[in-house]
């Protein structure tokens, strides 16, 4: 049966519309999986949602991968490439300033700094990464460093590889959210706009300052109650350090994005309106399709209905992962050459 599903997936990938990678996001007890057409990102080809056990960060996720694989094989997903978004608790994000240099030097500085840090993530066998935010002068630059437990990552990706999938990338949720929020406003007129995005989880949040398609500043808060404060600090710090224009709006990603009290708190703290996609927006129209497809794939009982697992805002992280196109050459480059391409495309 599994082989038949596998060949059906290959057949659809070979003769159907070209599909992007499958986005898998672990968020707030649910694994959301979505795949969109390569040329029409609002065209959802397949979607599924299953619950996973959050009692422990490591072994429990490994045990939860079987229904995830089952959902991937049983759904209408095409191809094998997938992008995994780690749970918020599994990746620690810190922003700090390091000496300007090449990527290897910055990577070494990040590893040295995070190795002595303290956080909720077990870092005895860490996997490091960083995002270069921008120069701050005096031969120093700001980076958003990410550290995650390698064993936890392997406990997620190895079952996928064993099942025939190709996890081409693993990333923290804030980068996927940033990608989704940029895609939300991809019109040329919005390229230079500055906006705040909040990657909201039950265990904390990450505030992002986005200018066009670039992350200008990132700040992580371990408690959700401190999100408004983190947003305010993000605005102030970004304006002080980078001299950007003030943001014009706030986007919230997560299952509690439609919490009216939280929206009011954020609006009071930042003095900015909290906006959501209208019904004709990319994610709103895609979410309607997700509801149909995810409910269709929930026949086994292990799958959760999409409408019960948060609204469209809860799926934006999975969309951000699905929007990530990672070719084979980029996969090789990411493995051998850690040189980040400093793109300020909005500029």
């Amino acid at each position, binding site marked *: 049966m599994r082989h038949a599903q596998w060949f059906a997936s290959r057949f659809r990938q070979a003769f159907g519309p070209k599909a992007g990678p499958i986005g898998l996001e672990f968020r707030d007890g649910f694994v959301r999986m979505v795949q969109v057409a390569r040329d029409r990102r609002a065209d959802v080809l397949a979607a599924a949602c299953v619950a996973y056990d959050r009692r422990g960060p490591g072994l429990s996720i490994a045990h939860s991968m079987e229904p995830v694989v089952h959902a991937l094989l049983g759904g209408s997903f095409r191809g094998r490439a997938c992008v995994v978004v780690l749970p918020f608790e599994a990746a620690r994000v810190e922003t700090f300033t390091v000496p300007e240099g090449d990527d290897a030097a910055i990577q070494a500085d990040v590893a040295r700094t995070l190795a002595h840090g303290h956080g909720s993530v077990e870092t005895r066998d860490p996997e490091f990464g960083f995002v270069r935010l921008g120069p701050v002068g005096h031969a120093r630059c700001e980076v958003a460093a*990410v550290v995650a437990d390698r064993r936890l990552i392997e406990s997620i990706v190895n079952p996928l590889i064993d099942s025939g999938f190709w996890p081409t990338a693993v990333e923290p949720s804030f980068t996927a959210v*940033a990608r989704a929020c940029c895609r939300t406003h991809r019109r040329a007129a919005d390229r230079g706009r500055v906006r705040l995005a909040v990657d909201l989880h039950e265990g904390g949040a990450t505030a992002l300052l986005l200018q066009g398609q670039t992350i200008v500043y990132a700040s992580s808060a371990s408690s959700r109650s401190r999100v408004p404060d983190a947003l305010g600090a993000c605005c102030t710090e970004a304006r002080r350090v980078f001299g950007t224009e003030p943001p014009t709006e706030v986007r919230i990603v997560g299952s509690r994005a439609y919490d009216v009290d939280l929206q009011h708190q954020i609006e009071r703290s930042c003095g900015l309106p909290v906006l959501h996609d209208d019904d004709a927006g990319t994610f709103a129209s895609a979410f309607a399709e997700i509801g149909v497809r995810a409910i269709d794939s929930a026949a086994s009982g292990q799958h959760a209905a999409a409408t019960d697992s948060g609204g469209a805002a809860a799926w934006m992280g999975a969309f951000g992962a699905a929007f990530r196109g990672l070719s084979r050459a*980029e996969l*090789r480059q990411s493995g051998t050459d850690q040189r980040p391409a400093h793109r300020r495309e909005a500029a």
Partner: protein
Amino acid sequence: MREHTLQRDLNLLPASARERVLRAQEVSRSCRTALALTVIAATAAAASEAGRLQAMEACDAAERQAESALARDEHRRRLEAEVRHLAEAAVELQRSESQLPLSSILGAITDALPLGASLERVRLVPDGAGDWICELSGNAERAPLSHFLDVLAQTRPFERVVINDYVQASERFQATFAIPNDRPYSVVQGDADVNADSPSHSEIEDLINRGGHHE
């Protein structure tokens, strides 16, 4: 489709997993290449086989056509040979008939005919074996008739001179003798050559048909 939303696509995929993925992609690519080559080879083989079958069918059709043409040609040759044979036979018959010394034959008969006897009819008919049969009918007494037939029997190349019928009351007789047709000859009665200056074939026939008498 690719639009970078971040300064760099951060990737926390461990090196070991990355190697596994790359290896799986290599295997998949090799399998796809092998499958494609297999499909191409199978398609080429099928096309080749189809071409071969088509060529064989064309060859068979050509062979059948050639055999038919050969058969027709053989039949034509056979017909031509038959026609040629018939034509040659006709020419030979015509030549034989034209070379048959009828006047000499008739002269030999009339010379040998005894006094008092008469010939009513002299007729030459083929006997089916290549020879001619000369049929004589007329009136004669018994004794002269025997002498007449003896004289004919001594005439070369008359053979098998027999009397077929004789009516004593009316003294009518019918006799036949054979004239060979497989060799050249001249009619010789005793030591005399009766072939010289004979009337033509048509003249003799006219004479006979008019019931000419030799008294």
